[in-house]
């Protein structure tokens, strides 16, 4: 029965009913999530798998690359250089070669990534003060690996020479010294933990909300809800609240995995990091609601979420490929990718220990985007069909 009149008692009853309505709706949403194995798997399996995959398997750091040595010199020097290479942790010895033909064969088979060749007379030349050579051959089918391997090997060999003759100045007059700031060990986890976080939060928040609203539309339950005293705002909020909570939990899991398992530092404020995470989740949810307000079916919602968000997030946010090396038009497009700003913020807080004073710009962009999408969705709010 509708309640009319304006006495405070009546108003209190109305408010209580409104609250009951809303909690019943949120409860129902939790039932949907907790009873659907696929949803649960995406919610909690995905972040775990992603972080661990990127952390341990899909890494571009060089570890234990297979190399072969062709030692035509067989001297203490060649032996010591070999030992130094193998002791670095970057390389492991696959085999000792006997001839130049073996090199090609080994590369063809793909068993080695790098071959180190000591020419005959290497020690003799060196000790008589003549210039001497070591040849490095790398399998450049993976060009980045090849470049890294030869760089590492060159550096190690140079170190060896410097150690041998600490007093002899190299002929170079310019001494270049580089220092890797913030990430001296060049750990890949520093890059992908923020990236995975952005990806998972976007996926869970935006994809899930857009799909669940589309599902209600498909099953016809949305029609019944619309012909109920529930307001559209209550329906939307009821959809947002559970996913906001679950996504936040997800964000915390990823941060914990990053810090405790992958040893990403947390130099900045945890509170700031969590607030920025909440902001990003809110943005992702607004995008999800926006998508659901313009599509009709779960399938389209899923497709739109994946195409419009996941792919750009992976390719254009700077997560996988550096934005600076993209062509100009794509660089401009990357400015529209929310994940780009979030990744910068997370990196800033966790690794550089930056505060809001340095991060206010990307934060402001995220706030602006949230307002934009929420505004659009609210404008698309309908009290009726079509």
């Amino acid at each position, binding site marked *: 029965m509708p309640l009319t009149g304006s006495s405070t008692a009546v108003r209190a009853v109305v408010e209580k009913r409104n609250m009951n309505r809303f909690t019943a709706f949120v409860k129902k949403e939790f039932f*949907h999530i907790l009873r659907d194995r696929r949803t649960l798997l995406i919610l909690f399996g995905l972040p775990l798998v992603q972080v661990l995959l990127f952390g341990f398997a899909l890494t571009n750091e060089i570890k234990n690359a297979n190399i072969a040595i062709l030692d035509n010199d067989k001297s203490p020097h060649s032996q010591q250089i070999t030992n130094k290479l193998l002791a670095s942790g970057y390389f492991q010895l696959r085999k000792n070669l006997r001839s130049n033909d073996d090199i090609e064969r080994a590369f063809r088979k793909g068993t080695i990534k790098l071959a180190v060749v000591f020419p005959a007379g290497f020690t003799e030349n060196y000790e008589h003060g003549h210039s001497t050579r070591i040849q490095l051959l790398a399998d450049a089918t993976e060009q980045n690996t090849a470049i890294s391997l030869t760089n590492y090997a060159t550096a190690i060999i140079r170190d060896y020479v410097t150690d041998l003759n600490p007093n002899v100045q190299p002929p170079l007059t310019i001494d270049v010294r580089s220092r890797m700031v913030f990430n001296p060990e060049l750990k890949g986890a520093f890059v992908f933990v923020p990236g995975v976080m952005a990806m998972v939060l976007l996926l869970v928040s935006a994809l899930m909300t857009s799909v669940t609203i589309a599902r209600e539309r498909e099953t*016809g339950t949305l029609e019944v809800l619309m012909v109920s005293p529930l307001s559209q705002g209550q329906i939307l909020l009821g959809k947002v609240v559970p996913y906001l909570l679950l996504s936040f939990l997800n964000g915390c899991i990823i941060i914990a995995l990053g810090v405790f398992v992958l040893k990403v530092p947390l130099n900045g404020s945890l509170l700031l990091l969590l607030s920025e995470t909440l902001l990003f989740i809110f943005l992702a949810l607004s995008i999800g609601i926006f998508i659901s307000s313009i599509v009709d079916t779960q399938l389209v919602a899923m497709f739109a979420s994946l195409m419009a968000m996941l792919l750009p997030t992976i390719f254009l946010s700077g997560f996988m490929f550096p934005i600076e090396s993209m062509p100009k038009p794509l660089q401009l497009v990357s400015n529209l990718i929310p994940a780009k700003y979030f990744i910068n913020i997370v990196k800033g807080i966790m690794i550089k220990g930056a505060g809001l004073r340095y991060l206010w710009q990307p934060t402001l962009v995220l706030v602006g985007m949230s307002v934009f999408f929420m505004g659009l969705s609210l404008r698309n709010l309908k009290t*009726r069909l079509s």
Partner: protein
Amino acid sequence: MDAIIIENVSKSYGETPAVSAISLSIRPGELFGLIGPDGAGKTTLFKILVTLLLPDQGRATVAGYDVVKDYKALRQLVGYMPGRFSLYPDLSVQENLAFFATVFGTTIPENYPLIQEIYSQLEPFKDRRAGQLSGGMKQKLALCCALIHKPEVLFLDEPTTGVDAVSRKEFWDMLRKLNERGLTTLVSTPYMDEASRCDRVAFMQTGTVLAVDTPSAITNRFTKPLYAVRATDTYQLIQDLRLAPFTESCYAFGEFLHLTVKSAAVSDRQIDSYLLDNNHRNIKIHPIQPGIEDTFMALMTQPEPTA
């Protein structure tokens, strides 16, 4: 005042008209049927009445409230069961009912007497997920959910579509019982045999109402003689009868053909001899009383609706 008043309501989707200038009045406490084939505009009319769609033209009131202006108040007063299964398949029977009760600002105990008879059949399965119920059970649960807030007017859009014959009959028995308590009910169906269960029916086709009356008055409009005809080769029979000079119309109804002849002067012997001339065997002919389907077929083929 009438429970539902529809005045000159039109609605089109783009260029396609779905409902064209329909006017209807439904009295309080009536069990009123909208009968018509798919695409007749029944669902569109329902959605306008339950405030889900805005009419392009005309106005309508339900329980005295305007469907456009007073939609908020109206949404508390109507019970609506859309055409397709519209419950949460992953919630149990009990959870579905409790959810809709709370959403409509009530509780199951508060209005239990209203649904008791229907819900008692579902109670043994109250912890079963709604998605795992049979078609008939789903309809019963959906009806309970639409009734739980004690609506003043009940809208059921094709509630029996896709439900087996026994469950359909049961469902109509339930509607009749609810109606006896004074609940105004508007129900749509594509099954013409269900029309006779209503107090009054409106026949709809391509967005217009062809006729509105009680089921018996509607069949009384059928004035021409009607025969049930049967022979060995049904297909050839229908072809030949449609070509016969005395035939007004001929349709298949189960194992018999229903033949309407142009005047009372045409006798069954005349039909028999015509069929013998056309080499039909095992011919059976007998005059029958027109049913509601015969009337609808006749109305559909008439050039102008007789409202």
